């Protein structure tokens, strides 16, 4: 069964076409690495899957339906994470705010909710974050907290938008391992967007590479090739394989590495809240 089906779908924001007549299908239980240059539409695609941005033409189906905003079967870890630097709220209440957070009235955490939060925190190895304020957490700890939150409510599809940003190499490895372990156990389909392919090589089933308004879904060997990537980047791309690593180069420079440098303030994540 296909979890996400995209048929000749066009996604536009602010008059700009991010994805033009793209078609692909993601199967249940797959771990998909979503890659592509800045502005290629990784965030936009996830927002479309969430039902926040209907395609201007074509079809986009999630679990066989037109996506509806507020679908509880989708866990989401957004990229633009507005965590106020001085937020003195403990982890439990932070996650608790997202449980039925769309309902009106007073917030309340039942014993069941509390247990669910604690279990999920334990599943990502972050039990101790429940009672610590966010302002006292490191980047890695916050990320873990957000990951736990995305897993709450037994989602069948997990959208992780750049979950590795602001983590050091060791914490990136840990984060990938945690996602892989939990999602394999629970049979969750994952869309995991990242800048760097190599860390995900051992984990991902297929790659969804975005660029130049196009989307190519396939195995690493099918997608990470000079002709495909040259088309997606709109420039000459060489793919160099060395020692189990794959380097995507343009005129001798590592494309992924340089993209990572100017991660913020790019055109791909125009979604601002302020």
């Amino acid at each position, binding site marked *: 069964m296909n979890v996400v089906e995209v048929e000749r779908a066009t996604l536009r924001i602010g008059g700009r076409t991010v994805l033009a007549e793209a078609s692909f299908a993601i199967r249940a239980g797959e771990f998909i690495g979503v890659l592509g240059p800045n502005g290629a539409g990784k965030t936009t695609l996830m927002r479309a899957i969430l039902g926040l941005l209907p395609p201007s033409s074509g079809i986009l189906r999630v679990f066989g339906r037109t996506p509806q905003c*507020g679908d509880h079967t989708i866990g989401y870890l957004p990229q633009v994470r507005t965590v106020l630097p001085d937020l003195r*709220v403990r982890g439990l209440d932070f996650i608790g*705010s997202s449980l*039925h957070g*769309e309902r*009106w009235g007073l917030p309340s955490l039942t014993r069941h909710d509390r247990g669910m939060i604690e279990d999920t925190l334990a599943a990502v190895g972050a039990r101790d974050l429940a009672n610590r304020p966010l302002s006292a957490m490191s980047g890695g700890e916050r990320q873990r907290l957000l990951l736990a939150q995305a897993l709450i409510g037994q989602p069948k599809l997990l959208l992780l938008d750049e979950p590795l940003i602001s983590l050091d190499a060791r914490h990136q490895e840990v984060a990938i391992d945690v996602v892989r372990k939990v999602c394999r156990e629970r049979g969750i389909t994952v869309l995991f967007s990242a800048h760097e392919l190599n860390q995900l090589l051992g984990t991902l089933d297929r790659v969804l590479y975005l660029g130049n308004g196009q989307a190519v879904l396939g195995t690493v060997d099918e997608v990470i090739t000079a002709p495909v990537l040259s088309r997606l980047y709109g420039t000459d791309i060489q793919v160099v394989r060395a020692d189990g690593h794959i380097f995507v180069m343009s005129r001798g420079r590592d494309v992924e590495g340089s993209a990572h440098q100017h991660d913020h303030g790019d055109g791909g994540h125009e979604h601002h809240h302020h």
Partner: protein
Amino acid sequence: MSITITDMFQYEFMNNAFAAAGIVAVVSGIVGYFLVMRGQTFAGHALSHIGFAGATGAGLIGLAPLWGLLGFTLAAGVVMGVLSERISNRDIAIGIVLSLALGFGLLFLHYYTSFATQATALLFGNVLAVDRTMIATLAVLGLITLAALALIMRPLIFASLQPELAEAKGVPLRFVSTAFLAIVALAVSECAQIVGVLLVFTLMVGPPAAAQRVTTGLWSGLALSAVLALGEAWFGITAAYYTDWPVSFCIAVLSALGYFACLAMPALWARRSLGGRANQSA
């Protein structure tokens, strides 16, 4: 000294002051908690200044200042809420509107010269002049404010902590933030009756900021914020009674002391526990 605490309750104006300040402090402490959590304290400050123009304007056309204050802050709160997502540089826009409003307040005062004594009361508060009618009005307004806040509290917290996720889960962000600013406008109008438009921070920002330094739980934070605001307001009035200093000054001092004490407290705890651990390992 033979004076006892019961002396001050012989006066009706003191009883009124305690009642009014009590109502307002609890409302301010609770609404202010979310203002601090959302990092919108500047917006609260601006609303109070805009209210000043409303209050002096109301005086000009023969209305009670409170209604002018309410009308202007509510309108400004709603406008700010609706525009906030479009104004990328919010602080500057708010700052400019804030000074414009104060300027208008001055203009209205200029044409209504007998209003000069009331201007001080508006700017710095005059809780000792509160009458029964005002207490009833504040109580009703306070109940409306808290009821409205209770209605939107759950999505408000979600939208404050994680706007991107809240939007994905179907929380109407703009409605929630606009409704919240309208609630802040109500609270500011009430608060200004006690400590004046210039000092609304003393009850709306000091206590919640202090509470959030000490406790990280939601309900404990809200409760502590309300209790601190209440304590600071009542002790402020008491201190003013015995020293003859202005009430708002006393509340402002207590608010600042409370905040800095709470700021220092976790640091002291940490040092003590670190010291304890060092001793154990030695």
